[in-house]
């Protein structure tokens, strides 16, 4: 499969068949850092360093009129002096100088700019006026803008970390966030457990590029299999409806501000009940967007939707080494509308012949504390044909647990209580593209997402 190969062609590569207006943001040939700095605490230094260390194949040009060299790279004095081939500029200079910088980028043939700097619409009327100037300059010169007031863009599949922190793990979940911190936290979790992301974009003030543009891009991005977004609101509802309804990939949204708006006193019941949040719920449901209420759910749902195969039905079998975890999984399965079906008699009979006598042959099937990878494998193989999904809980430090699971098989993997072995085996499974969940609750709830919208989710 192409997306598994991790091959990314530059925007103008002759073999690249599809092109998208946002290619310059995600897959630039070369990048300039406007406002690069020698001061290690400044973003002009941090982002340049991350760009240099993330494995970007193109050139990275620091731009600063006062420095000759930053991080071992010769400095360019001005945007006009940049060599050809720069598709993307990362702008980290005082807000008042940004409109001119954007115009200069356009002049130099740079197609996109990520504006990290703050001091725009978020900071009052003067800032809002500056932001309008940025939009003007961008429109006139045909430059697409991410931000301002944002945490940048990271495309690990292109070695492009125009953001912070430095994260390079390649995966299949794209993260869009109206809060830089929230998005970065999500990407950090995915990197920590070696699952990785396909892209991260901090939207900032959304003066140009918004969530709809990004969904449109990610829908055709070969590396992305699910889109996770943190939003405080949708900027352009009509376009959002149109773009999302033709996006063939699952989208999960954590939309904040559910409770802050006071309800208006109103004369009709309908009016008094129609808060913005209810309308967002309606919109998301109609567009088959998975709506979640917490950051953990955002991550877990995206993980499940990106990596787990679609279920054929709701009958699950739990296989565990921990009785307590098996019961917790069963409770959550029942609450989530899954069916904890009995083991068929002949299968139970076969298993009793295969397993030590102290194992509990039921659903959940409890291998008890001395369950080994070999025992798990026997049970997984013998029961697979009889259930729609297997919930495999490793509730101990089970060596070689990663060898039990099969990428793309209808298996939900939960690993807990395994300490160092757990961390190692989880990383091994994530590199096989088998997602691992940390608790029965989080795993089963994530699995249940696959059944939303009558199981016909995109």
């Amino acid at each position: 499969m192409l997306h598994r190969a991790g091959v990314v062609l530059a925007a103008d590569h002759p073999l690249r068949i599809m092109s998208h207006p946002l290619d310059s943001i995600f897959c630039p040939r070369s990048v300039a850092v406007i406002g690069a700095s020698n001061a290690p605490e400044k973003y002009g230094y941090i982002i340049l360093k991350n760009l240099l260390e993330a494995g970007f194949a193109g050139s990275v040009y620091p731009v600063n009129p006062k420095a000759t060299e930053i991080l071992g790279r010769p400095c360019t004095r001005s945007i006009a002096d940049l060599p050809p081939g720069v598709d993307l500029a990362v702008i980290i200079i005082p807000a008042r100088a940004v409109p001119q910088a954007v115009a200069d980028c356009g002049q130099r043939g740079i197609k996109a700019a990520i504006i990290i700097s703050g001091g725009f619409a978020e900071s009052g009327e003067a800032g809002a006026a500056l932001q309008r100037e940025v939009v003007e300059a961008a429109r006139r010169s045909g430059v697409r803008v991410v931000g301002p007031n944002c945490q940048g863009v990271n495309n690990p599949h292109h070695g492009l970390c125009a953001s912070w922190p430095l994260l390079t793990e390649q995966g299949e979940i794209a993260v869009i966030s109206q809060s830089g911190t929230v998005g970065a936290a999500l990407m950090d979790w995915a990197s920590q457990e070696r699952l990785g992301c396909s892209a991260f974009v901090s939207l900032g003030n959304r003066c140009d590029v918004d969530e709809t543009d990004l969904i449109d891009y990610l829908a055709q991005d070969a590396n992305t299999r699910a889109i996770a977004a943190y939003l405080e609101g949708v900027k352009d509802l009509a376009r959002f409806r149109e773009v999302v309804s033709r996006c063939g990939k699952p989208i999960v949204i954590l939309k904040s501000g559910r409770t802050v708006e006071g309800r208006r006193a109103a004369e009709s019941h309908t009016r008094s009940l129609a808060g913005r949040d209810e309308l967002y719920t309606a919109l998301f449901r109609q567009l088959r967007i998975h709506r979640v209420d917490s950051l953990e759910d955002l991550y877990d749902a995206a993980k499940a939707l990106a990596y787990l195969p679609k279920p054929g039905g709701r009958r699950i079998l739990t296989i565990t080494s921990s009785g307590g975890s098996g019961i917790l999984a069963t409770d959550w399965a029942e609450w989530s509308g899954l069916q904890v079906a009995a083991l068929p008699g002949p299968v139970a009979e076969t298993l009793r012949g295969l397993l030590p006598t102290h194992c509990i042959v039921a659903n959940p099937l409890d291998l008890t504390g001395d369950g080994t990878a070999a025992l798990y494998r026997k049970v997984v193989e013998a029961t697979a044909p009889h259930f729609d999904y297997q919930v495999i809980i490793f509730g101990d430090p089970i060596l070689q647990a990663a060898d039990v699971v099969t990428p793309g098989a209808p298996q939900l993997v939960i690993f807990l209580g395994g300490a160092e072995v757990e961390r190692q085996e989880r990383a091994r499974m994530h590199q096989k593209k088998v997602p691992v969940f940390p608790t029965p609750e989080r795993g089963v709830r994530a699995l249940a997402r696959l059944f939303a919208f009558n199981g016909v989710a995109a």
Partner: protein
Amino acid sequence: MTTPPAGDRTRWLPEPEALHLLADYNLPVIAHRLAATPEEAAQAARNLGCPVVLKVVSPEIPHKSDVGGVRLNVATPEEAAAAFTTILDRLTPHPSRLTIQGILVAKMAAPGTEVIVGMVRDPQFGPAVMVGLGGIFVELYKDVAFRLPPLSPGEARAMLGELKAAPLLTGYRGQPPRDLDALAACACAVARIAAEHPGIQEIDLNPIIAHEQGCMIVDAKILVHE
């Protein structure tokens, strides 16, 4: 009693007009007459068949029952004539400020399950259609579902299915199941009205009495922008 705030150029359609608009969309509205005198109220009750309900018609009184503007279960034409006078007497503390267009005499609907269907036009989202269980369910539990039109009959059925109280409509504890298709048709018609009348800001069909076969709109409020 509340009225639209001054400067906001909206007004509630008089109920006979609201019911007329709904009937134009083939919605089942309760049989009714507008009476200008006690005699006309008695005559209307005779023609419609008792029991009837009497409701004051005034654009300034959207919440009629809060001010004593409604009499339910009026059993005879004579009682209807008396109720007519009682309602007007109750409203006389502020007669000069009220435009009273008459008293609506409507047939009492057969008992069933109370449902609400509504629409609001949101400045950002455009029209949104709501369904919910009537009475205490909508007040207390806010047990409602919203959709943004266009609305297919299937989607409208799905909305009803989303309600926590949906079992009350599908035959709970020996209750007969209610006509979900008829309710879904009301929701779809409300979506159509919103699409075809951009000036309509809100619609509140509350309650609609759902029966085993069909349903009946017994109270309708429509807010229009002038």
